[in-house]
């Protein structure tokens, strides 16, 4: 170690070597310390302070016109006093096709915040990103307190969700029992781990003028069977207004067509035992052959790459004369292109040899177990799913979301526009994913792997109905037979 004058500072008290040593220690210590601290925290987590159980806010907001028409019982406050003030709450939802819904939800959160002192925020992300985001949050044990979920997801995240039986019972007491398709997709075994909020339904969306030009006798009563639809599609395509259907990897419109067509032609993913795959049925093979024979003649052939938004754009751009969709095309057209809105006629799903069905499972909202504010989250859901708030949410969507119970279905917003009535009627023909089994984690996996949708896409690409259905059956067997 040098003792030379140039190697020492601060009157000889600090050597160059000591300085280097200090820097090295200084660099290493915080990181080592931080790591040790982090490991320590992971190993022995500090329990988060839980606010005491909750009561719904005392003051209920003024009911909407719809609410006034069919008054509902107010949410019953729970018995124990609450200390929610100052707690935080984050909610995650997918975006809504009726964008005003998001503004309303933000406003509702503000109201809830004012009444309870809870600092609540909400994020809306694209539909396809919602499940990965929830998966990542569950895996990391951190993220939003409340999540909006699609059907079958409660089964997928059953270990991560808080039991909300108390709130659900309260809802059923006030608003009556849920629809069967709701129970089949939200109940996990006999447990309510999330609160049903209904689902957007789909219907056939036609341009009346295109039907007329194609020679359909009564455009106000569009084709009612799959075969008639395909036949008129040929004439519509000749006039430059083909049928437009998405078959890409997208979670809304492609399954709308594929599941409905499959069921209407006697096939299903699995029998009621939840194990026996019932996909490769002769009637379905024949139906698929029929569909393939019309694909080039009647459909826009770029549909293989379409997602949930493409058919909306194509319809509003006047490039197609028919599609399956929620009411979003009509709602958008009313604002942007009233002439197209006027020209639209909706019709429920077509019938096939085995009947008329549509893919319907309820969305729900759940609380994640890792939340540090479970009491606040429960208080919010209790408040928000009560008719005073929930009705506003349904109303602003103008019938886009079918309610999970019959209680709301006579409300004016479901009836005021006759063009939207088929969307409510669709609730009668709902079947859950995974039918005839439950909409459980296996149905979720089959759906997430796009097996039914890809069966159609493969058939279109290869032109071989048997091979595509065999492929689908073998993929389903891997899931349901496991």
């Amino acid at each position, binding site marked *: 170690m040098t003792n030379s004058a140039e190697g020492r500072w601060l009157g000889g008290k600090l050597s160059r070597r000591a300085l280097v040593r200090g820097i090295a220690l200084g660099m290493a210590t915080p990181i080592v310390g931080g790591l040790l601290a982090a490991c320590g925290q992971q190993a022995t987590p500090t329990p988060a302070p839980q606010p005491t159980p909750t009561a719904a806010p005392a003051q209920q907001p003024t009911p909407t016109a719809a609410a006034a028409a069919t008054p509902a019982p107010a949410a019953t406050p729970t018995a124990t006093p609450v200390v929610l003030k100052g707690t935080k709450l984050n909610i995650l939802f997918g975006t809504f096709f009726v964008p005003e819904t998001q503004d309303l939800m933000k406003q509702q959160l503000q109201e809830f915040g004012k009444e309870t002192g809870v600092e609540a925020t909400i994020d809306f992300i694209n539909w396809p990103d919602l499940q990965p985001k929830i998966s990542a949050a569950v895996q990391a044990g951190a993220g939003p307190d409340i999540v909006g979920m699609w059907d079958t997801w409660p089964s997928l*995240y059953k270990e991560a969700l808080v039991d909300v039986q108390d709130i659900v019972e309260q809802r059923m007491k006030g608003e009556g029992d849920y629809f069967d398709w709701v129970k089949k997709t939200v109940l996990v075994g006999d447990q309510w781990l999330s609160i049903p909020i209904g689902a957007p339904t789909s219907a056939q969306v036609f341009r009346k003028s295109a039907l007329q030009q194609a020679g359909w006798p009564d455009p106000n009563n569009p084709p009612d069977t799959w075969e008639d639809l395909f036949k008129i599609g040929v004439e519509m395509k000749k006039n430059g207004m083909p049928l437009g259907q998405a078959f890409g*990897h997208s979670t809304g419109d492609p399954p709308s067509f594929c599941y409905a067509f499959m069921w209407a032609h006697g096939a299903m993913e699995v029998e009621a035992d939840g194990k026996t795959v019932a996909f490769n049925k002769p009637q379905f093979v024949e139906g698929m052959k029929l569909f393939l024979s019309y694909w080039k003649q009647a459909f826009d052939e770029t*549909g293989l790459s379409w997602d949930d938004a493409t058919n909306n*754009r194509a319809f509003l751009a006047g490039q197609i004369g028919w599609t399956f969709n929620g009411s979003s095309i009509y709602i958008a057209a009313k604002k942007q292109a009233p002439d197209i809105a006027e020209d639209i006629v909706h019709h429920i799903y077509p019938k096939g040899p085995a009947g008329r069905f549509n893919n319907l499972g309820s969305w729900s909202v759940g609380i994640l177990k890792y939340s540090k504010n479970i009491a606040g989250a429960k208080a919010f859901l209790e408040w928000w799913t009560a008719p005073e708030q929930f009705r506003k949410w349904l109303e602003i969507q103008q019938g886009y979301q079918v309610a999970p119970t019959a209680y709301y279905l006579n409300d004016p917003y479901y009836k005021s526009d006759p063009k939207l009535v088929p969307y409510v009627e669709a609730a009668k023909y709902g079947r859950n994913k995974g039918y005839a089994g439950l909409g459980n984690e296996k149905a979720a996996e089959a759906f997430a*792997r*796009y097996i039914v949708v890809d069966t159609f896409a493969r058939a279109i*690409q290869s032109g071989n109905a048997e091979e595509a259905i065999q492929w689908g059956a073998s993929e389903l067997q891997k899931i349901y037979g496991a």
Partner: protein
Amino acid sequence: MTTAPAGTVTQAVPLRLRERVRHWLDSEPVLAYLFMSPGWLILLLFMSYPFFLGIWISLTDRTVGLPSGEFVGFRNYAELLRDRTFHLTVMNTFIYGFVTVPFKLVLGLLLALLLNQAFPMRNVLRAALLLPWIVPTALSSLAWLMLYDAVLSPFSWLLKNWGLIESNIAFLGTRTNAIISLCIANIWRGTPFFAVAILAGLQAVPQELHEAAAIEGANRVQRFLAVTLPVIKGILVITTLFSIIWTFADFQLVYVLTKGGPANSTHIFGTYAWQIGIGGAGKLGIGAAISLYMFPVLAVLSAILLRYVRSQEA
């Protein structure tokens, strides 16, 4: 026997300890490791830990949201060998990796040679060249998504207006079209990396050598082959290897443009692992196994890269 006062003892111990620590810190190797420790720890935390965790998960049947899965050995890997979509995924990844890189290399080289010439606004053009590389991939992928849109694609619109086609082109609607479209977008994004790296190399080529070769009667092509190419050879090898590695590990472009569709025909390792592990099925074990199938290829490429760099250093 007199007993030492308690205070003296307690004071003596820390002093001895301090001396020992000081002595320990005086050792060069200890100091060197201390300096390296932040880097090591970051590598351990953010690279090694996820890697080994990934290996462990791939050997279990772990799913999202459930407590850690059970050990299943190599079952996930064996299952994938029987999965037809996985076979297609492997093929797609190789096509995607090995078809795009030569194009990027040649185009990048041509661009670099062009930008190495003296002309007005050269610096502006050089800066603009970097745009595809610096724009976030997710954002540029969205732009490509609009360009390839089945309904509103400007390419289809132009071709229709010129009377060359009658209906829109399904850029992403069939496997062949989709793979070609993905490769074009990837080449567009990756070419600037080659161009900039090669341009830097070109500027290191001594002008005197070119002049000497010209005096000896060498034409442009001969000068390029005999003078320029040997100097930039190292850069070409390194950028090519890097590009193959990045293309193999790509995710964003394919995810945004096709999500692996239609009919799972455009998946590459990253997107298929995502679809199975995170995107819905929640099968983390199989998802991790898919990702790890990529490891041997990347390991070999990385080894070649490192070996080359070391040989150049020597």
